[in-house]
């Protein structure tokens, strides 16, 4: 049975310590960002997408399931959080909780449907489900259709952190990203993660060993969707709006692209991929539809020649697990 990721993990023990070092470097770099004069809005946006891509990667890189509809979690959590903050006047922490729970509930419902088919059908079903949701959000009044929910108040997190101050907001977003990242890292390296990898490598064998593979896949899908939703809730505070673009299939495609560029099934790949793609979009914003063409070209090049992705290639070269 072939698998979607070519980034097999060779030596777990040394790999773990390598990952620790990489994690410390990444965290240190992200902590000093506000001192460097890099546009913080860009980094905050990239961090939200990095968490989103990591959540997506949990599903494809470790579970072998390609979801082509992950934007539905991003958009749903965004709408829920935005509505809770703006219309109900909830505090930020409650808003995030509502958005994340909304994504979790969506994960349970769509997971029970999508998990019934494997491989290529799974990808088509998740895409179709997210398109269904797109049309629902287009028509329901609370999302304000094409306009989206605009001008969302940022408020005070836990009553003390003023989120309308960019520097405070930056560290809150960073904390949220690190929390989600560590949770995913923990899940991958837990017995649950090991079973997931076993299913990816050889599902019939995992079944014959007595694992209820459908339950594992469903759990991975719900976890992935919930964390993607968490990223979507955080993004509301950065962008201060929630709109239909976040639910559209082009967004799902971008999530796939970020993960593919960074490296499917690598721990740090999605983070690198998210920064690369978001930076590219920023610099090429004036070139109109050529951005789409370039994204398509990156897809083609990655699949044809560069399937391990940036981090996957580095890890492969040094024979480490990153």
């Amino acid at each position, binding site marked *: 049975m072939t698998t979607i990721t070519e980034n097999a993990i060779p030596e777990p023990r040394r790999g773990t310590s390598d990952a620790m070092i990489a994690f410390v470097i990444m965290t240190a770099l992200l902590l000093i960002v506000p001192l460097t004069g890099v546009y913080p809005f860009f980094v905050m946006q990239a961090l939200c997408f990095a968490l989103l891509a990591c959540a997506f990667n949990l599903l494809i890189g470790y579970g072998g399931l390609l979801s082509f509809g992950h934007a539905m979690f991003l958009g749903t959590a965004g709408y829920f959080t935005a509505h809770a903050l703006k219309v109900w006047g909830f505090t930020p922490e409650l808003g995030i909780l509502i958005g994340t729970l909304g994504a979790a509930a969506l994960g349970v419902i769509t997971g029970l449907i999508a998990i019934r088919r*494997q491989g*290529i059908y799974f990808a088509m079903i998740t895409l*179709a489900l997210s398109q269904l949701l797109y*049309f629902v959000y287009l028509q329901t009044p609370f999302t304000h259709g094409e306009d989206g929910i605009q001008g969302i108040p940022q408020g005070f997190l836990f009553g003390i952190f003023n989120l309308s101050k960019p520097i405070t907001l930056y560290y809150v977003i960073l904390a949220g990203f690190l929390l989600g990242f560590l949770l995913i890292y923990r899940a991958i390296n837990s017995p649950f993660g090991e079973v997931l990898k076993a299913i990816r490598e050889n599902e019939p064998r995992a079944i014959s060993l007595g694992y209820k593979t459908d339950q594992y896949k469903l759990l991975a899908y719900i976890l992935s969707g919930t964390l993607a939703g968490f990223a979507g809730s955080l993004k509301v505070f950065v962008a201060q709006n929630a709109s239909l673009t976040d639910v559209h299939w082009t967004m799902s495609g971008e999530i796939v692209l970020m993960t593919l560029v960074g490296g499917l099934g690598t721990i740090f790949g999605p983070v690198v991929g998210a920064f690369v793609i978001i930076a590219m979009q920023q610099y090429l914003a004036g070139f109109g539809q050529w951005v789409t063409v370039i994204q398509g070209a990156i*897809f083609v090049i*990655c699949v044809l020649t560069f399937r391990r992705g940036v981090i996957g290639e580095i890890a492969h070269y040094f024979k480490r697990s990153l």
Partner: protein
Amino acid sequence: MSINLQALFAQLLVGLINGSFYALLSLGLAVIFGMLNIINFAHGALYMMGAFAAYFLLNVLNIGYWPALIVAPLAVGIFGMILERTMLKWISGLDHLYGLLLTFGMALIIQGVFQNYFGSSGLPYAIPDLLKGGMNLGFMFLPIYRGWVVIFSLIVCILTWYLIERTRLGANLRAATENPTLVRAFGINVPRMITLTYGLGVGLAALAGVLSAPINQVRPLMGADLIIVVFAVVVIGGMGSIMGSIITGFALGIVEGLTKYFYPEASNTVVFVLMVLVLLIKPSGLTGRAA
């Protein structure tokens, strides 16, 4: 509830036309999947290219609708075969999902290029003189062109079915789907067959594009949303059977048309909702084998 028959039949006709496109596209997807093990995400973009090919033939080379019906699918089919030879061929041994990602990238490139030059608005394409006007059937007014699309699509679908299920060439093709190594040992050029199959599937998509040009305007994104609906059609019907995808395509078009009449708010989503129901009741699809 009083039923306005005129409006009901008009929506049914729209549904049948959409159904024709679903059938032609899902048929092509099924043929390609059988042979290449790839879900062709670029199918919607190639459908759009078919419509643009007809547009260019008319406006640049002054070649009308009837020749375009043959020339456009041929040209786009050849373009597809070049794509297969230069790109898809290299990922044949890999997981299915890479095929989906590669063709998704191809779709983005094609659609992006067309959007750059033609924006997002539609270009008009006139109905050919012979098929202008309509007839009064007593219970409804039938625009001739729309009737032609349904009947012609049905004929093409049945011819494709006949080609694959009832001819020598089709038998070779089906055999190569089952066991390419063995078929090669019989001296049949399987790689060439794969290329031609991709060309055939792409040609069918382009033909649907030409047929739709006079009805829906010629737009760069005309295939982008359509392909997602066709994916749902394919999930409902399963890709195991050629006739299955034809029937499912037409049937879902009709259901969509009925929804437009009885509950228009759900007309965008009804196919997806049906997909969910089918997955809950019969996960392997209506005609498909378990995947």
